[in-house]
């Protein structure tokens, strides 16, 4: 069989390096989770991961992460739009501020949010009056996860929006489209791939988040306990296999969800295959 020649040199070394790197950084640590779990019997494993407290934490973690990522999906898009399309004083500062949730220790974010939203905090005080409790409720978890996921959608959409030629909008307008029609039929479809990426990143980040949530959630079992915290609790009780079992299930569900998002993107890309 003849070897197919690629125009780019170094396919062999590049692939070798990639595989080594992924193995060292990603696959081997993940495999350890897997191996550790294998030391359990099937019954104990099943009992551990279907414990009502664990199931409740899965529900809260995935639901709150999804909600947080969705909120960021909407407002991140809006923020990116404003930052790219308009010029206003203080723009640079706002642009730079956006990355802060990445840089801040998450515990600091958690404490700050808790102070704001607790019953006598600046926001919590007024929200309490209209019957909304944020701190120590699932809503508080959503708030924290929204906060830490903010930069993803903005940062993935920004460059694409910047490169989007004004001609497309002008073409739509000259054909009689309203502004909303231009946005929904022409601009948004062009942003969907990067928007999905941003959403997936924010979602994934929220799933793994621990530091900021533990302060605002109150960590009540069955109600405001997220899966990462539950894992940590198990570790503190030296139940290492129990912790890895819960982690494994979470990993598998996360992987499936991210894979679906990836497939969606691929399908979308193939549809408008750029030349």
């Amino acid at each position, binding site marked *: 069989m003849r070897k197919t020649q690629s125009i780019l040199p170094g396919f062999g070394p590049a692939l070798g390096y990639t595989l080594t790197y992924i193995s060292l950084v990603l696959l081997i640590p993940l495999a350890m989770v897997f191996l550790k779990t294998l030391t359990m019997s099937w019954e104990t494993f099943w009992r551990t991961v279907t414990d009502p407290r664990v199931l409740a934490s899965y529900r809260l973690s995935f639901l709150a992460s999804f909600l947080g990522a969705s909120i960021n999906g909407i407002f991140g898009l809006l923020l990116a739009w404003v930052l790219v399309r308009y010029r206003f004083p203080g723009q640079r500062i706002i642009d730079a501020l956006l990355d802060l949730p990445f840089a801040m220790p998450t515990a600091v974010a958690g404490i700050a949010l808790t102070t704001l939203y607790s019953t006598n905090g600046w926001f919590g005080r007024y929200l309490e009056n209209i019957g909304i409790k944020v701190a120590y409720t699932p809503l508080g978890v959503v708030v924290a996860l929204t906060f830490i996921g903010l930069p993803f959608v903005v940062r993935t959409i920004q460059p694409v929006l910047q490169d989007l*030629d004004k001609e497309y909008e002008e*073409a739509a307008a000259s*054909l009689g489209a309203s502004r909303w029609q231009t946005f929904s039929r022409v601009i948004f479809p062009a942003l969907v791939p990067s928007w999905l990426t941003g959403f997936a990143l924010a979602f994934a980040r929220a799933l793994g988040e621990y530091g900021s949530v533990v302060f605002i959630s109150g960590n009540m079992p069955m109600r405001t306990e997220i899966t990462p915290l539950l894992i940590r609790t198990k570790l503190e009780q030296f139940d290492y296999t129990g912790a890895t079992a819960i982690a494994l299930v979470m990993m598998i569900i996360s992987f499936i969800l991210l894979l679906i998002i990836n497939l969606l993107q691929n399908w979308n890309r193939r549809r*408008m295959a*750029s030349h």
Partner: protein
Amino acid sequence: MSIKVEHITKNYGDFQALKDLSLDIPGGELVALLGPSGSGKTTLLRIIAGLEQPDSGRITFHGEDATSQSVGKRQVGFVFQHYALFRNMTVFENVAFGLRVKPRRERLPESVIRAKVHQLLKLVQMEWYADRYPSQLSGGQRQRIALARALAVEPKVLLLDEPFGALDAKVRKELRRWIRQLHDEIHITSIFVTHDQEEALEVADRVVVMNNGRIEQIGTPEEVYEHPANLFVYQFLGDINLFQGRVDGNRIKVGNSEVAFPELAGMAIPDDKTAIAYARPHELEVYGESHGENAIEAEVRHVRVIGPTVRLELRRRDNGGYLDAELSKERFHELKVRVGERVFVELRNLKIFVEDYQI
């Protein structure tokens, strides 16, 4: 539909893109806006379309003031230089776009939209490509789809920004001819922008030559080519040889030779005023020997045979300037000149331009 542009000015910061420009375009014509880059031709087109607002002045469509109308309301079809086809839509959906975004009351039933789009695709000879995406088409095909999309909303005016700019030479020529034919079929008032004089002269009913935010001349292709209003138009519409000279009564001194210009008589141009005489390469007459005082001695530097014509690059002996001459092949064989040999260029059929005077 006729278009009237009255006293339009447009500035971008310190740059004056259009300077008090007025233009009348009768209905049904195919008009070319011709000019070098930066002459304001695209700005003018975009102002007519409503994609840009003039700083002052008025645009009327068929007598109706359209200056403050938005682009969507003006009923213009605009074809962009880079087509701006929607990448996430098929060819069919691209063409149907303008019909689908109409308010519900005015929207045609789906079956009528389908029929109309197919009819348009047939008109632009792309009926087999309805399900393709723009990225799967060649440049020329994209241009046709962009045109079909613009025509779908039945515009009163069709505006095309450098419609052939991004295409290769052969496709350009085909598409040019095809657009001319299409215009003869549907007779919609059309304006296109180009910097290619050949394109403008070949396709348009009328040519508007622009320079520096102003109109230099308006006329049929023949008028602007044969009777250029000024030196700029003359220079822009083709290759040109310039002869710097000085006025001497009704004669012009060019180098050591003198040429009589009877039309200078009675104009009372002061002697020694700078004059520029000019001629196109095919208007120069080249001889092997001098016969007369109004010939310029030159040396042949290059000979290029292009099909039935021969181009000579000549270097003047008197001041070292270069001249281009174009001969027929027969004439070239009669002359029997080679590179490095001496020839004489007869100064005849010259046009003349003297600053501040209309000749």
